[in-house]
C-alpha cells in the first residue's frame, strides 16, 4: 500500500494546464490578441502612430487612404490612422475606468447584501429597481448633463448607474454559494463574516462576474464613444473614436474614411472583449465539480 502511494505521477502546474486549454481555443486566441494589441496601442501610441495626431497639414486635406496615409486624412489634414491609434489611449481607459469602480462598488455591496439578506437586501432591491427603471443611456446622459461634460464626469455618471448590475449579479452568486456547506463550515470554524465572504464565497462567485466585466468593457467603449459623439464625453480636439466619428459625419459622402475607420476600431475592440469574455465563460465554468 505504502509503496503504491509513494509513487507520485508528474503533473504539470495547474496554471500551465489552464493556459494550454485557453490557447487551444480560437475565440480566446483572437480575443486575447486583439485586447493585448489594443493595450499596447493604448500604452505606447507614440511608437505606433506614424504622424502627430494633432498636427495640421494643409497640403493634405481629406486625402483618401493611400500608402502615406493608410486611413486617409481629415478636414485639417491630420492623419486618421494616427488619430485612431491615439484614441486607443482614451477608449481603453474608458473601458477600464467606466467599469472598474462600478465593479468594485457593485461586487462589495452585492456580496454583503447577498450574504446578510434581510432588511439590507430589501432596501438594496428597491434601489436597484429605481435605477434599472430608467433606460441606461438616458440616465447616464441626464447625470452627465447635471455634472457637465468631460471624461471624469462621464466615469462618475456611468459608475452611478452601472454598479447595480454588478451588485445584482454578485448578490445572486453569493446567495448560491452561501447554500454550500463550506460557508457553514467556515462559520463553525469560527471565521468572521468578512473572512467567509471575501476569502471563501467571493472567489467562488467571481467567474460570472469576470465574464460580465469583459462584456461590460465592450459596452463601456460603445457608451463612451456614444457620449463622445454627442459631445458629452471626451472633448475635441482629443482623439476619441466617438469624437472622430462625429467630426467625420459632415463629410460622410466625400471623406467616408474619417468616420468609418474609428468605427471599425470600435467594432474590433468590442469584438475582442466579447470573444475574450466568451472564451473565459467556457474556461472558468466548473466542469463536473
Amino acid at each position, binding site marked *: 500500500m505504502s509503496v503504491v502511494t509513494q509513487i507520485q505521477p508528474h503533473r504539470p502546474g495547474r496554471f500551465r494546464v489552464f493556459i494550454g486549454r485557453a490557447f487551444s481555443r480560437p475565440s480566446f486566441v483572437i480575443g486575447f490578441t486583439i485586447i493585448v494589441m489594443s493595450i499596447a496601442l493604448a500604452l505606447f501610441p507614440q511608437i505606433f502612430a506614424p504622424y502627430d495626431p494633432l498636427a495640421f497639414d494643409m497640403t493634405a486635406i481629406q486625402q483618401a487612404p493611400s500608402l502615406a496615409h493608410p486611413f486617409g486624412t481629415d478636414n485639417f489634414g491630420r492623419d486618421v490612422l494616427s488619430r485612431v491609434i491615439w484614441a486607443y489611449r482614451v477608449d481603453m481607459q474608458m473601458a477600464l475606468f467606466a467599469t472598474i469602480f462600478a465593479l468594485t462598488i457593485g461586487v462589495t455591496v452585492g456580496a454583503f447584501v447577498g450574504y446578510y439578506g434581510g432588511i439590507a437586501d430589501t432596501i438594496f432591491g428597491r434601489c436597484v429597481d429605481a435605477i434599472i427603471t430608467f433606460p441606461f443611456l438616458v440616465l447616464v446622459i441626464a447625470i452627465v448633463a447635471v455634472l457637465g461634460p468631460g471624461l471624469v464626469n462621464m466615469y462618475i455618471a456611468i459608475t452611478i448607474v452601472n454598479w447595480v448590475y454588478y451588485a445584482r449579479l454578485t448578490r445572486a452568486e453569493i446567495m448560491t454559494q452561501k447554500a454550500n456547506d463550506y460557508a457553514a463550515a467556515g462559520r463553525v470554524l469560527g471565521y468572521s463574516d468578512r473572512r467567509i465572504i471575501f476569502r*471563501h464565497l467571493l472567489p467562488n462567485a467571481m467567474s460570472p462576474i469576470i465574464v460580465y466585466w469583459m462584456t461590460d468593457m465592450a459596452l463601456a467603449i460603445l457608451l463612451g464613444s456614444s457620449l463622445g459623439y454627442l459631445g458629452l464625453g471626451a472633448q475635441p480636439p482629443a482623439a476619441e473614436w466617438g469624437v472622430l466619428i462625429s467630426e467625420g459625419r459632415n463629410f460622410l459622402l466625400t471623406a467616408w474614411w474619417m468616420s468609418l475607420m474609428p468605427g471599425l476600431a470600435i467594432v474590433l475592440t468590442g469584438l475582442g472583449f466579447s470573444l475574450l469574455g466568451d472564451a473565459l465563460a467556457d474556461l472558468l465554468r466548473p466542469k463536473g465539480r
Partner: protein
Amino acid sequence: MANPQQETVLELRHLRTEFGSRQHPLVAVDDVSFAVKAGEILGLVGESGSGKSITLRSILGIVRPRGRVGGEILWKGRDLAALDEAALRKVRGREIAMIFQEPMSSLNPLLTVGLQISENLVAHTGLDAKARKARAIELLEMVGIPSARDRLGDYPHEFSGGMRQRVMIAIALASNPQLLLADEPTTALDVTIQDQILRLIQSLSRDLGMAVILVTHDMGVVAQTCDRVAVMYGGRLCEVGTTSQVIADARHPYALGLLRSIPRDVAPRTPLYSIPGAPPALNALPLGCAFTTRCPVAGPECRDLRPPLETVGQFHEVACHHRVEALAHFRQQEAAQ
C-alpha cells in the same frame, strides 16, 4: 461505555429552537436536555425533520439569526445560548468543531487542502508558517491520508468522498477541540468508507479524550459507534440511554418501531416493516406527545399531555405514558411474525 466518572463537558437544559414569526413560531427543537461527558460518543437518532441537525447547529449558534435559541447550553461553565456572535466565534472551531454530511461541498473548491487546514490554525493557534505546515501534515496523517506531505497542495476535487471527509475531520481537529459535532458524517459515503470514518472518529475520540455528538438516522451506525443514544422525534427527546439499553431494551414506541424496521433474518421478498404514517409538520405538532398520530398504543391523554422523560433504569430515560403497553404490543408483533 464511557466512564461515568468523566466530567460532563456539555449540558443542554431545555433547549428550544424556533423559526418564523414570534406569534406562530415553528418549533424545531423543543425542551431537549442531555449531557455529554469527555471522551464519550453520544448518538442523536431520528428520522429526517426530527430536529437532530438543528439541535447540533443550535449548540454553535449557527441557526441564528433566523432561528431563536432558548434554554441553556452549558459549556465549561458558560451558557452558549446567551453569548453574542463575537464571543461564540471564539468557541467555534477552537473548543467545539463540527463536520457536515456532504464532504463534496464542505470544502472550498478554490483553496488547497493545506491552505484550508492552515487557515484554521491561523485563526485559532499562534503557530508560525513552518509549524503550521508541520501540524497540517501531522493532522492529515492522523486522519489516515497517505503521503500527506504531497497532498497538502492538492485541491478538494482531487480527493475522493471518503478522503474529503477525512480532510474535513483534519480541519476540525486542527485546534484540538474538546467536542466534535458530527452531522451525519457518513450518510453520503458508501458502506466500507462509512465504516472507516466511524472507526476513525471512535479512535480519535478515545485517543484525544474528545466528546462527540454523532447525528445519524442509521441505527447500525449507532450500535457500532456510540456509547449513549438519544432518540429524537418531532423536535423532542423520546428516549435516552446507553447504546445497549436502547438497542436491547427500548421502551418508547418510536424507538421500538425504529428498531423493528431494521431488517433481521427476513426471507427474500417479504415486505419490510416501517412505522406507518409520516412525521408531523412543524406547524402541526400536537400539544402532547409528538408521536401520538403514528403510535400504536396511544391513549386519549397522549395528544394533550406531554409525557416527561422518566427514569426507567440507570442512565435510561423514556418519555411515554404507555411504556408497558408499548413493550407488550411490540413483543406480540414480533412473536406473531
